[in-house]
């Protein structure tokens, strides 16, 4: 039974994607969507969605790319009852159902979004056909710690998320040239939702390591070699814990490969998504 039927409320067309608000899974959701073909779901990181990334546009040549702002992030409503990543995981499954996405479909989850995708895969192998976990949160590093967003400012976080922010065109496009007062307010709001979900235990689950043994979905783990937010050792843990998972580590790349190395990222992901497996 659908909670609320998906209904398009507003429509803004810009280049090769549309930005809309839909009523889905009980909430008003900000949705960016572009391309054609089979659906591909993107679950964003704790930093939210800065816009229609080059990587999304590239992937949209082969897929209909769906990028919802998760509850509490971007323009999406924040319900009082979503307090954990697992709550968010439940909501994502309703969203997929309510907007009528054909299941199973592939998903790319970045950082917190990767954690959400992994949580869903531990419970149900009929929603996602393939998992791409990118710099995924959710596991304790073998050594060291995840970088602490909450001891730093949003601005410091954006810089920390790139191995070389000055050379990353997506960094300057979204976080320097295109940066506005509205973006700043939005970043603070995203940070508030991130604190709600991730404050303690910080960016990790004590139960996920055990649960990942049950994942039966083909999984690719993508990491930036210079990820300074979630140490690359977490990449190896994901690969060890998810049966059959493979990894791809991108060089000269930080926590957001889809923004820092869009070409390599898209090539790697497209190969995985279009392969038989």
């Amino acid at each position, binding site marked *: 039974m659908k909670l609320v039927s998906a209904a398009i409320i507003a429509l803004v067309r810009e280049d090769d994607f549309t930005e809309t608000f839909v009523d889905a899974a009980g909430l008003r959701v900000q949705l960016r969507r572009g391309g054609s073909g089979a659906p591909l779901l993107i679950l964003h990181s704790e930093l939210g969605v800065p816009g229609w990334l080059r990587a999304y546009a590239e992937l949209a040549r082969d897929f209909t790319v769906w990028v919802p702002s998760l509850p509490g992030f971007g323009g999406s409503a924040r319900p009082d009852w979503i307090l954990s990543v697992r709550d968010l995981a439940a909501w994502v499954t309703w969203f997929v159902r309510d907007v009528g996405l054909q299941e199973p479909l592939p998903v790319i989850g970045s950082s917190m979004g990767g954690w959400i995708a992994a949580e869903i895969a531990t419970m149900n192998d009929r929603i996602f056909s393939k998992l791409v976990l990118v710099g995924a949160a959710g596991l304790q590093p073998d050594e060291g710690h995840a970088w602490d967003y909450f001891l730093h400012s949003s601005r410091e976080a954006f810089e920390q998320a790139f191995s070389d922010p000055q050379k990353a065109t997506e960094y300057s496009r979204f976080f320097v040239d295109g940066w506005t007062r509205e973006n700043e307010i939005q970043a603070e709001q995203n940070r508030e939702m991130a*604190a709600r979900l991730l*404050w303690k235990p910080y960016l990790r689950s004590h139960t996920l390591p055990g649960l990942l043994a049950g994942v039966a979905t083909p999984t690719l783990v993508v990491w930036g070699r210079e990820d300074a937010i979630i140490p690359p050792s977490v990449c190896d843990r994901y690969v060890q814990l998810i049966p059959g998972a493979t990894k791809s580590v991108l060089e000269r790349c930080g926590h957001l490969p889809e923004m820092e190395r869009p070409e390599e990222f898209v090539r790697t992901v497209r190969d995985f998504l279009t392969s038989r497996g």
Partner: protein
Amino acid sequence: MVKHVYFFTEMGYTAYPQDEARRRGYNNLMFPNQHFSPERARELYAMYFDELLYCTETGFDGVMINEHHNNPLSMMPSVNVIGAVLARTTRKGRIVFLGNVLPIHDNPLRVAEEVAMIDILSGGRVICGFVRGLGQESIATNVNPVDNRERFDEAHNVIIKAWTTPGPFRWEGRYFEYRVVNPWMRPLQQPHPAIWIPGVVSPESVRWAAEHQYPYVALAPPLHVVDEIYDLYDDVAAKCGFTPTADHRGYVIRVSVADTDEEAYEQGRQFYWQLGTSFGITPLHWLQPPGYMSREAKGSRREAARRGSVTITPGGPLLSYEGMHETYQVISGNPETIIRKLQHIIDVCDPAHLVFWGREGLMSHEAAVHSIDLMTREVIPAIKAYQADREKGRHERLVPAG
């Protein structure tokens, strides 16, 4: 009319290297505790406790204490430990807790027990303030700042219920859960010590205090926002069906008093002993961790005033020592000058409870004692005899300060 005057010091740990703090650009939360010397702290404690005792013996109606963590600003990381010591080292005067930082406790019944113990130990001299804490306290104790206000509310409710409802009873709230609430230790003052709510900028806290009919104590704010705070308090009180009196208004003011105006002015610079500020330097994202401050509070005129022109809390933009005099965030002078300035404050907000934040920084023990003498012999008697002229205050408050 002013009924009671209390003394306050942050009990600063003044022995840390300011150069190192300047180099790092901050002096709390993450400022390395290798710069803390227990031996120096022992000496400083001895001095501060002697002064507080002296205050209660010579004419203050009591002393105010508070709590900060990871911070040389204050040597009181547990307000209840400080209060317990005062309960047995002082013989008279109120011990004003401003206050217990409720949201940071996972077991607020511990606060109920400790305050009850101290009330008994002190012979019923406790005034019990509750605070949300600076943003840094949430980080230092790692309690999600997003939940700060709700945790404050629920901790308060369970403590008050523990003091007013016979136990045992059960508590199942959102943040706290008890199979058995039955603290054996109950306060001497029945049903419980007076509750005060101190605050700086947040309109929600003012509203909350008024809704509970608790006195609101303005913590050394610029004088021109105080009237706004108490106007809001009065509005909410009217909606709740009660008329606030001076008893609902408290005011903490930095006071530097010496034999001459010039001497007092120089001595008052000690309030800015921490990198030229009163509270030290803090990045905004420590001061306001995510969700700590509501969007309403961020958008309030008080907050705009704070960001724009005044330093009330750590990390705010710096206002010069001179500027702080203009906004009445510090007053200095010989006793006569101080009395005149305090009369102006009393005209504006007519508090029953005044707190003199009376010593800070590297001020010597001798200077502090002399200053205390001037306060108790000359200032306090004059202030207590003064009838507020609210009309004059209302007229004068229309003139924007600073």
